[in-house]
């Protein structure tokens, strides 16, 4: 990808008002694919948040379900006249609505575990970098041990102990993911600690807490944002996989993984839609988050000399 010497394309008259945020946005928009991915991610998020209001039917309201509508192929009409654009499952639930609700659960689990893991990572990584010595050694040994095992295995071990449930899978995902954040946070903080602006702040005799939280921490955030997006996508995939295996979420709170698992038994008889569409929604969500993460990394990477 070739760029002008200036590095940033600007409209005339805009030169005076270039904030870091604007530069970030204009750099980000260089890749049309990433822009499309961003909009898809926003739409998915919107659907997830507002699913109870925008879903055509409430798939878990037993009164509204009709068993006569079961296993209808995509596009069929129901007994009462509504169209099931993505078909229905074995209980006559509208797949489109079920996917909307499933997205909600999947995103809730992935985002809340990612946020918690990120907070733990920031605190632990920052302390490891700040205190050094035995704290650092202990933390990094723990991180190395954990990273020796695939996240899915760690989550699986925990869930086989804890049993299914939304809170349990969030705990499992946090345990599986905090080391990634911690490692990135520590290495970034170690690199930033020796930079001139920290030295300058020390020369100004600013307090320790102020240096760490006002100067060091904000400068460590860009890599954390990048790894955060990648890990959210990862969390969505792990949660779906565990739910598919029957270890993640209980059937009362179906995520996309559980919807796919429910449809799996009908695949061999050719009723593809029950498994296919939730999986496709999952795929779109993961790919768009990954593409956004990729472009954010490109833009924020100082080595690429923007």
């Amino acid at each position, binding site marked *: 990808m070739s760029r002008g010497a200036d590095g940033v394309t600007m409209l005339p008259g805009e030169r005076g008002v270039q904030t870091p945020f604007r530069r970030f946005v204009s750099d980000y928009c260089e890749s049309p694919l990433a822009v499309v991915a961003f909009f898809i991610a926003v739409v998915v998020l919107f659907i997830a948040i507002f699913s109870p209001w925008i879903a055509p039917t409430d798939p878990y309201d037993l009164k509204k379900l009709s068993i006569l509508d079961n296993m209808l192929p995509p596009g069929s009409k129901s007994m009462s006249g509504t169209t099931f654009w993505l078909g229905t499952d074995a209980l006559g639930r509208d797949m489109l609505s079920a996917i909307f609700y499933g997205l909600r659960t999947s995103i809730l689990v992935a985002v809340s575990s990612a946020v918690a893991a990120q907070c733990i990572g920031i605190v632990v990584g920052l302390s490891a970098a700040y205190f050094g010595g035995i704290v650092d050694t202990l933390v990094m040994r723990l991180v190395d041990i954990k990273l*020796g095992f695939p996240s*899915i295995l760690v989550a699986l*071990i925990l869930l086989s102990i804890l049993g299914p449930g939304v809170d349990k899978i969030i705990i499992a995902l946090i345990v599986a993911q905090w080391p990634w954040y911690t490692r990135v946070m520590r290495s970034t903080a170690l690199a930033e600690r020796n930079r001139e602006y920290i030295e300058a702040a020390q020369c100004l005799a600013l307090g320790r807490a102020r240096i760490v939280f006002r100067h060091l921490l904000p400068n460590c955030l860009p890599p954390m944002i990048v790894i955060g997006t990648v890990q959210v996508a990862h969390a969505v995939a792990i949660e779906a996989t565990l739910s598919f*295996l029957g270890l993640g979420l209980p059937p009362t709170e179906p995520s996309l993984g559980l919807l*796919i698992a429910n449809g799996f038994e009908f*695949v061999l008889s050719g009723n593809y839609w029950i498994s296919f569409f939730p999986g496709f929604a999952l*795929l779109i969500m993961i790919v768009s988050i*990954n593409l956004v993460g990729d472009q954010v990394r490109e833009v924020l990477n100082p080595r690429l000399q923007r």
Partner: protein
Amino acid sequence: MTVYILRRTMQACVVVFLITLLVFSGINLIGDPVDLLVTPDCDAACLDQAHQALGLDLPVHEQYFVFMGNLLTGDLGRSFVFGTPVGSLILDRLPATLELALSAFFLTIICGIPLGLWAGLKPHSISGRTIMAGSILGFSLPSFWVGIIFIMFFGVELGWLPVNGRGQTVEIGGMHFSIFTLNGLAHIILPAFNLALTQIALVIRLTFSGVRETIFMDFIKFARAKGLSPFRVIFVHLLKNIVIPIVTVLGLELGGLLAYSLVTETVFSWPGLGKLLIDSINLLDRPVVVSYLTLVVIAFIVINLVVDILYSVLDPRVRLQGAKA
């Protein structure tokens, strides 16, 4: 070097101890397996008898010592559900998982490295870009869903390949293998590809970035200037220098294959260890779950240890760093 290996081995033992403790005490907190095994009209005396027969009447820490003592002598206990020794149950399923994981490993190498090389040598061509875009997709696709798509497409729509179980097996040295029969080979293609897909994507990206970094180095220019054939430059000079990180990651990912075989085995009803674990978790078959997880943890720690040691053998820079620390 000896000190390094010793220190790593001791550390590994501590980790094994901690994780067995965690898994064992954790498993004891969920559900009483006896409830699933006895008939509904079983009274208190009959329940006590069942507990006694399974060794569940002892305090938890004594159960752990019994378990660890047995583990050290190679006895993994008896499955609650099957009533057979866990060791033989696991040995029975092991060949299926091993042959699946090794086939996937083989596919990863023969697909990943050539594709990554091609994309790295021609990064701006359509084929190169397609390969790299495909690798992003390979990363993002949830593997269980890909397995279902494989079943739908190749199994149900086209009817080309079988999608269920291992097919015909032959017995070699008391173990059953399916890759040596034509029918078994047809059964393994889809699961192996499914399992390998993420790893292939990973190896493609690693090889790609390795090639991109190395191709501008002076020794490559020099090899070209010397008039060596492009074939020799690529396969001897270039490949030799990018292979170290690939070897490490492949070694570590062998463990990943083991973990993800859980998913693939469930999707394709492959009668391996992963399916055994998932079934056992659902049936609260405690000895099987604990033994399996313990064995997997030990396997992982051994793999990590071997890879670390191999790495320091292959790359002198790592050795120097280790000596300093």
